[in-house]
């Protein structure tokens, strides 16, 4: 009797601790992001205090906090592990049997995954960051049009990063080594997108080169649109640029995925 009670007690405690440590994991993730955000803001602002900064102190704060809040929408390393294990085990062959377009299916899946994660994480960060004292405070968008343009850029940015990262998944289909594909892509993307340092801090020549690439449209563009560092009047043109890149990368990705899946049939057992 007592022994079985003890067993239930132990079981309960185990489940309890397990649940708690999972919640703790989510909390710890947010705490990590806050810590990271503080460090980045302090570093950038310390540099900016030397004078001549293209971004104001509060623009730096909003850039960093939004970056942390919407991390799931803008980083390369946020990946769908289930889909990757599907690819590695060869189960991706089943994708060919589905009466749906594999590219569209994966695209929707990846976009939904990112969106869900971002919605879960953004609220606490945005809320707490907007209550912090200056110069760390996340202020509201610089104007109503800027706020709307930020949301539009973020939405198209999500489609764009899914279209971009899809190539890493396609490469995984070919190499069957997903880590390699993502590890290769991440440092290049992060630098070119403005994750390492914001684009305005870079020298003019380099910035012009990076502005020709699609990467900065996922990170730099929405984050600066919010604080008015990019005037909202430029939004239509930049949104068009995002749309063009999507229109270019999606058909290319679909073609590549079709080819990769057809030739991967031999590998998948």
């Amino acid at each position: 009797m007592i022994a079985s009670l003890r067993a239930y007690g132990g079981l309960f405690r185990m489940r309890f601790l397990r649940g708690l440590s999972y919640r703790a994991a989510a909390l710890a993730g947010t705490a990590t992001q806050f810590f990271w955000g503080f460090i980045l803001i302090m570093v950038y602002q310390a540099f900016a205090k030397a004078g001549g900064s293209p971004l104001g102190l509060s623009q730096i704060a909003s850039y960093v906090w939004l970056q942390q809040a919407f991390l799931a929408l803008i980083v390369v390393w946020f990946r769908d592990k289930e889909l990757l294990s599907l690819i590695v085990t060869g189960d991706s062959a089943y994708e060919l049997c589905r009466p749906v377009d594999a590219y569209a299916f994966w695209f929707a899946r990846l976009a939904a995954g990112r969106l869900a994660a971002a919605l879960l994480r953004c609220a606490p960060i945005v809320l707490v960051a907007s209550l912090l004292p200056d110069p760390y405070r996340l202020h509201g968008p610089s104007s109503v049009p800027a706020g709307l343009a930020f949301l539009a850029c973020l939405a198209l940015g999500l489609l764009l990063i899914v279209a971009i990262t899809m190539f890493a998944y396609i490469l995984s289909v070919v190499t069957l080594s997903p880590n390699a594909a993502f590890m290769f892509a991440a440092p290049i993307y992060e630098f070119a997108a403005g994750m390492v340092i914001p684009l305005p801090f870079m020298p003019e020549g380099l910035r012009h080169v990076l502005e020709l690439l699609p990467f900065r449209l996922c990170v730099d563009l929405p984050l600066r649109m919010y604080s008015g560092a990019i005037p909202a009047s430029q939004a239509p043109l930049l949104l068009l640029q995002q749309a063009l890149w999507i229109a270019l990368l999606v058909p290319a990705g679909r073609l590549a995925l079709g080819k990769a899946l057809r030739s991967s049939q031999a590998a998948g057992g």
Partner: protein
Amino acid sequence: MRLLLRYLRLAAKGQLRYRSTFYLTAFAQIAMPLSLLAGISLLFARFGTLGGWSMGEALLCYGVTQVAFALAELSSRGFDNFPSILANGEFDRILVRPRGLMLQVLGSRLDLSRFGRLIVGGIVLAWAAKGSGVEWTPLKAATIALMTLCGAVVFSSLFVLGAAFAFLTTDGLELVNIFTDGGREMAQYPMSIYERWLRLFFTFVIPFACVNYLPLLFVLGRPGTGPAYALLPLAGLAFALPCLLAWRAGTRRYVSTGS
């Protein structure tokens, strides 16, 4: 010690089997700190100074931190992986073997691709040694070496502390990453740019400032510092003590994870 070398040889053999994966991870290990380095140098190119520190001086800070972290990661990564060792019952097998616990956990995962960070950090350190304009004396060089070693001890202690926490939660706590990865991120810039509460925490609770910023002030010959600052990194060793005690307490209380 001989056992540790055997572990190293085995790890090298095992990892070189998957040659292309090894090279790619090594590439990523080099590319990440490199892109960060590019970011820092661009910031210096733009603004010239960081809170009164020149680029060479700040890069000394960066180099010491990166090398210290790489050394810790090379040697103590097994502790980072410890929660999964605990969860899958592997630790029970480790316990019955007639060898030291810590040694076996250390040996469970020696990730050689981490040499990438060590190389980048080493090159930066060598460059900054010249670029910072320090007039080197034996004492100053010894201080840098001591900073690096004690810094590695602090990072390793954090890995051990994280593993000790796993005894309580079985699941790894991501929170420790704040202090390992986050600590690395933070300690690579001169501590003076941070807010007071952050500085105090990382001086007296986790002594990053003692193994990095404060002795560096002496090396750079800032006014108001003396040779006594060269001994400060030893405070990092003091930090290892409670971490090791936590690990001991954890292993004592351990009652297997079942299955």
